[in-house]
């Protein structure tokens, strides 16, 4: 073979290419977005340094700020993991928003209505498990439907999860305005009644809102990592995602794997909604948890679909959301700037050629494809 005596290798790499792709590029994307965001703030007449200082203070400046950042981060982590699992399996789950909403509705219903229906109290631990588990199941089934359609009819999951979003969000609106509406005569809002206390997932410390859901989210990240990289099922999901034909050739049941991937993705999204209900709001309300499912796509991309990356990206997004209010209070710079910066991050991560160009990072000969082509 000529490869060895062949073309001379030259010394050029400082960082292993793996680390450049998954670490350096996202980091530089964030940095660049902050710089561009700073310029926008300056152009609007603000002081970017003061703004970012305010942002930092609001996100990390006190124990309470830290606690609030984790409260923001929990649903981001769950939903980010949901989207990342889909991507790993070659499926673009845009439906996390709807799956999350159904997860919240199911958890709320189990939380407030189930004891009454059974005519008995449910022990606290069991009730929490039932509520969260019900939310996971609702989200999972809602995602498994487009998974099934993809596997057996070739219907593209992007279209179908978007359609399922419409159904889920409108159905949620109907339920919260109708059958599940909080019957309190003072209530004019589309929301469910409060869940009973046995279904509460308690805060870790009574004086902060920091709750067990965040710890559960970290636990899920570890579980997802273990499942994807250490188990046979995870290998099947990743193989199907990376090369469907090779997976079929290798004897993987790709139809089943596609459905399982979507089911698992939906379970995580449903969990995001269920935790918001059981650990934070103690009810579901239209307008709670809006946009998490879409932010999750940005988080999964920024985290390069790795659970650790998703946790870091979630903390970043959470810190920005949480710190924004403090920033606005201190500097009068509107919180919307944060949305601009988050959008820029997504832009730079998705179009990482731009980042590579700015920082002169050579691209590896690798094409990153989010999802497979249309049809089979």
């Amino acid at each position, binding site marked *: *073979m*000529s*490869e*060895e*005596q*062949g*073309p*001379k*290798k*030259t010394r*050029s*790499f400082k960082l292993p290419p793996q680390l450049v792709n998954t670490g350096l590029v996202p980091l530089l994307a964030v940095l660049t977005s902050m710089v561009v965001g700073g310029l926008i703030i300056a152009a609007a007449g603000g002081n970017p340094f003061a703004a970012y200082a305010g942002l930092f203070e609001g996100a990390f400046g006190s124990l309470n700020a830290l606690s609030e950042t984790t409260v923001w981060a929990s649903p981001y982590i769950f939903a980010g993991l949901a989207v990342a699992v889909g991507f790993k399996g070659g499926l673009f789950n845009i439906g996390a928003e709807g799956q999350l909403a159904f997860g919240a509705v199911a958890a709320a219903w189990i939380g407030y209505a189930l004891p009454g229906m059974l005519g008995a109290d449910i022990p606290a631990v069991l009730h929490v498990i039932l509520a969260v588990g019900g939310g996971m199941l609702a989200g999972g089934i809602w995602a498994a439907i487009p998974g099934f359609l993809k596997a057996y009819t070739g219907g593209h999951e992007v279209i179908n999860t978007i359609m399922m979003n419409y159904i889920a969000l409108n159905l949620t609106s109907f339920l919260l305005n109708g059958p599940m509406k909080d019957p309190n005569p003072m209530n004019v809002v589309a929301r469910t009644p409060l869940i009973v206390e046995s279904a509460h997932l308690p805060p870790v410390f009574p004086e902060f809102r920091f709750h067990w859901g965040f710890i559960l989210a970290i636990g899920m990240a570890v579980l997802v990592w273990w499942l994807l990289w*250490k*188990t*046979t*099922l*995870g*290998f099947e999901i*990743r*193989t199907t995602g*990376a*090369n469907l*034909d*090779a*997976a*079929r*050739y*290798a*004897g*993987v*049941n790709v139809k089943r794997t596609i459905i399982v991937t979507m089911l698992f993705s939906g379970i995580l999204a449903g969990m995001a909604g269920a935790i918001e209900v059981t650990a934070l709001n103690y009810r579901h309300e239209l307008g709670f948890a809006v946009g998490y499912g879409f932010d999750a796509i940005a988080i999964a991309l920024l985290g390069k679909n790795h659970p650790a990356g998703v946790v870091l990206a979630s903390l970043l997004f959470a810190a920005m959301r949480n710190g924004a209010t403090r920033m606005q209070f201190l500097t009068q710079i509107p919180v919307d700037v944060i949305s601009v910066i988050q959008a820029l991050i997504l832009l730079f991560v998705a179009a990482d050629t731009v980042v590579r160009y700015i920082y002169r990072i*050579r691209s*590896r*000969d*690798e094409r990153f494809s989010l999802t497979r082509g249309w049809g089979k």
Partner: protein
Amino acid sequence: MSIVLEAHGIRKQFPGVLANDDVSFDLKKGEIHVLLGENGAGKSTLMNVLYGLYKPDGGEIRVNGQAISMSSPRDAIEHGIGMVHQHFMLIPVFTVAENIMLGMESVRGLALDEKVVAERVRELSRDLGMELDPNAYVHDLSVGVQQRVEIVKALYRKAEILILDEPTAVLTPQEVEDLFKIMHDLTNRGVSIVFITHKLKEVLEVADRITVMRGGKVVGSTTPSEISEAELANLMVGREVSLTVDKAAAQPKETVLEVSNLRVLDNLGTVAVDDVSLTVQAGEILGIAGVQGNGQTELVRALTGLARVSGGSIRLDGQEVANASPRRITELGSAHIPEDRQKDGLVLPFPVMDNLVLNTYYLPPFSQGLVVHWDRALENANQRIEQFDIRTPSAMTHVGTLSGGNQQKVIVARELSRPIKLLIASQPTRGLDVGSIEYIHGQIIKRRDEGVAVLLVSTELDEVLQLSDRIAVMYRGKILAVVPAAEATKESIGLLMAGITEKKPA
């Protein structure tokens, strides 16, 4: 003869690889100059530099004695350089004329003037003795005819210098002969041709001069009269290689694979495999010869569980496996080297380690069910890399970054490292260099001698003739004849491949 194209001291650096290292090359008017080398030797890089696709990091290009600088193929075309790529650059849903005028359309007012173009295409192709119908749609044409469209397209752009990149890789033996005829016709008219290949026989048949590249450098220049095929192979590979396959007579034993009256439909629902019956015994190689697209792909996919069987039966080791899952067929002891290694056989962004357990990851010792023991997979990978001489920096290197030959070795290592009764090898050496071909042929023979039944499918007639103990010829979905390899000649099989059966009734 005057020198029409000259490259001097070309240097081209890619990240981590010096693909062209001080390469000099010249082309005389009216000659066929073969550029020979293994995959990765730097031939294509050099040609892409000459066609304006790559900007060289150093060196000079001269056309008719004048130094030029090119920044795109458009510049190359202006200097009279045309290129026919290995993968055609035609638009299937356009007609021949539309494809040819693409990029330099004749217009009348705002409308395309297809008539004028069609007339000129007709003239040009008739002139060259290869009738082309300008109004035919490209997707209706055979691969050989599509290649002619590419050639006419270059000539239509007034190319005086033609670069043909591995043009014979996709052709049948007859089409290759036709192509050589066309090439000689062209050189008689003063066109100069650079012919890129790694097939030695062709080189000696067609070349006026030969330049051999290895490892990004020119390692020798010669003419066919000065060198033998074996010497050429050694020069190209850089060591002694054997061009013939040494094998003892087959000792066939029990029947392992028995196919009866098999019928398979292709994606479009037309019959691709039509009433095929064949058997393969342990310890023999049954070769299936045939021009590409005569049902071999569908036959193999049906045998391996990847395509639906619509009639007939497949018995593997006595068990019915028609429409069984790929996994069940694999577990019964069938190994499959797929036709398209990058599409079916490998997961390119995964490490070598993962690819080596692609179909055994769930079995002991790699797993007892739930968890994959990657430490054992790594151990396995290191053993296979050693045993099958896979040239990779490590077991964790992504398979997509390896050369084609080494990618194929990963597949061969995986498929041949478990206890198997049947090996289905489909185009096992397509696109590989001499060294890898030698190795893979050796491995196939070794398994046969160990008592494995081998079904070899190849469109390379030489390969089928060299390896097989019996040869079946497939034509339009049917097996026309099965002949003992000892009685087969290149001519008799070649006729059968073209569907002509008078001489040898099936």
